[in-house]
């Protein structure tokens, strides 16, 4: 069945869907290379007649007001996401290893508990966490975000990593142990190196999650200088006008690294994310 109705319909469908998928990104890019004056023309210029990188230059120049603020948010986001990722890997790797290798009472219950976390609404956790953070003196600190992202990212990190560990034959470890290595040493010297692509993919996944997170950052931080990028974007709205080219350029800078990282590693994510759901 090389030709015929179905393949053609499939192509048409995928084509329309691709346009739908890319339209927002495309318009983001087009608006970001316009001047404010050109951006608010209607009907709009489909292809900018005088493309300019002014919006980007402004965002990236520390001397300008808007650049100073944007670069600060960018650094804040980088710091929060990196710290979350590093701590997350340190905690999730041993746990995922245990879930993959050991049989202990409560193992299943615990694991479904881990998955159940997906069901709980973030907004509902906000109040108790806010009070807890206030009690700990952490409101309006980036540490509160790092701790929150860390814990909420753990279930999925453990789930992803367990999938990678499951694919490493246990015989390799057993061989190392027969040769006299302790369990920990076998883990460190045999399992870790073999699963490094999985660990990297998981790390990048948690980085992306932290980078994109909005609702906790919106609630826990109120000091302007401490905001992360997703919340900081609101600065492009003022009472009088919206700086659409600036907002779109900032959104573009925020989105591009994440989309690029995901696409490069999509093979790993897609496999890891779907493994559990289709194994039968």
């Amino acid at each position, binding site marked *: 069945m090389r030709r015929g109705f179905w393949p053609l319909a499939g192509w048409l469908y995928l084509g329309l869907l691709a346009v739908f998928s890319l339209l*927002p990104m495309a*318009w983001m890019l087009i608006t970001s290379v316009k001047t404010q004056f050109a951006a608010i023309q209607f009907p709009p210029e489909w292809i900018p007649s005088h493309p300019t990188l002014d919006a980007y230059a402004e965002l990236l120049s520390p001397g300008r007001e808007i650049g100073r603020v944007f670069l600060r948010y960018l650094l804040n986001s980088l710091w929060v996401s990196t710290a979350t990722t590093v701590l997350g890997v340190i905690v999730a790797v*041993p746990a995922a290893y245990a879930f993959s290798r050991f049989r202990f009472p409560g193992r299943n219950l615990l694991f479904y508990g881990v998955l159940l*976390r997906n*069901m709980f609404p973030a907004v509902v956790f906000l109040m*108790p966490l806010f009070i807890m953070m206030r009690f700990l003196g952490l409101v309006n600190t980036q540490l509160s975000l790092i701790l929150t992202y860390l814990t909420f990212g753990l279930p999925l990190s453990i789930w992803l990593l367990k999938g990678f560990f499951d694919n490493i034959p246990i015989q390799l470890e057993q061989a190392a142990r027969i040769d006299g290595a302790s369990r920990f040493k076998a883990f460190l010297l045999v399992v870790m190196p073999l699963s490094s692509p999985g660990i990297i993919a998981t790390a990048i996944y948690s980085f992306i999650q932290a980078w994109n997170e*909005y609702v906790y950052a919106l609630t826990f931080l109120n000091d302007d200088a401490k905001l992360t990028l997703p919340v900081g974007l609101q600065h492009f709205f003022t009472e009088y006008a919206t700086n659409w080219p600036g907002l779109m350029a900032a*959104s573009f800078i925020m*989105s591009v690294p994440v989309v690029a990282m995901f696409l490069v590693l*999509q093979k790993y994510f897609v496999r890891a994310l779907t493994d559990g759901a289709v194994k039968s």
Partner: protein
Amino acid sequence: MVRHRADYLYVAPAVLVMVLVIAYPVWFTFYLSMFSTPPNLALEDKIFVGLDNYARILGADSVHEASLNTLVWTVASTALAFVLGFGAALALNRPFRGRGLLRGILLVPYVISAVAAAYVWRWLLHSDLGVLSALAMATGLRSQPFNFLDNTDTVLASLIMVNVWKEFPFVMIMMLAGLQTVPDQLLRAAQVDGAGPWQRFWHITVPHLGNVSLVTVLLLLAANFNGFTIPWVMTGGGPAGASEIWITQIYQLAFGRIRFGLASAYSVILFAVMMTMGYFYVRALVGRDRAS
């Protein structure tokens, strides 16, 4: 296998952190839901009110109005994302040149930050300057710009469209993985026996996708029920509450009006609905494990 006490050490850090940040907040929300809290959040001044908060939430007109929106938002987003994503998976489930690239393009909405997506869609749907209006006018469908988000009749549908745009790729990758478990030999054997594409689809492909569909739909229902960023950034529940859903109301009650007690009771009600869904979710997963 011999059990070692040390085995627990590997899991302990993760469990400890999760108990602290998941179990405690759940308990605290229940507790707080029975109190009236002062607006300065000085919790030592809270007043015990029993089930009063629940009665007030369940009796509020604004909550009733948001309930219908929540139902429409959750069910319509899930159904449309599922249909769109499943279609994409079916169309992608054959070898052709550029398949990887196309899959990558279709994954972009899923990866992009929800806030950036919400802003760019606000711009696309802008009442005076929006691209969608301009497209409709350029193709002669309309003579005036169309007001998507400031119109009580279209605002919820617009938000659902954006949400579907964000979520269909998730369905696509889940169903694509599911489709790869459908045995090729079976499909070919059926073809040899004279089964047409529709028959092969209904009698072989669909029955193989039961589990993965169930898991995907339940995950989507949960995600949509809890969906916050898109409605909050795009409309904040407006205009006139036309896009208000439970989650945005809870947030407004808690952090707009600082009524933690009332918002906690609202959250517990939401919990109850969630847990009912969660029960089916776990049962579906456990059932799948037993079958394997």
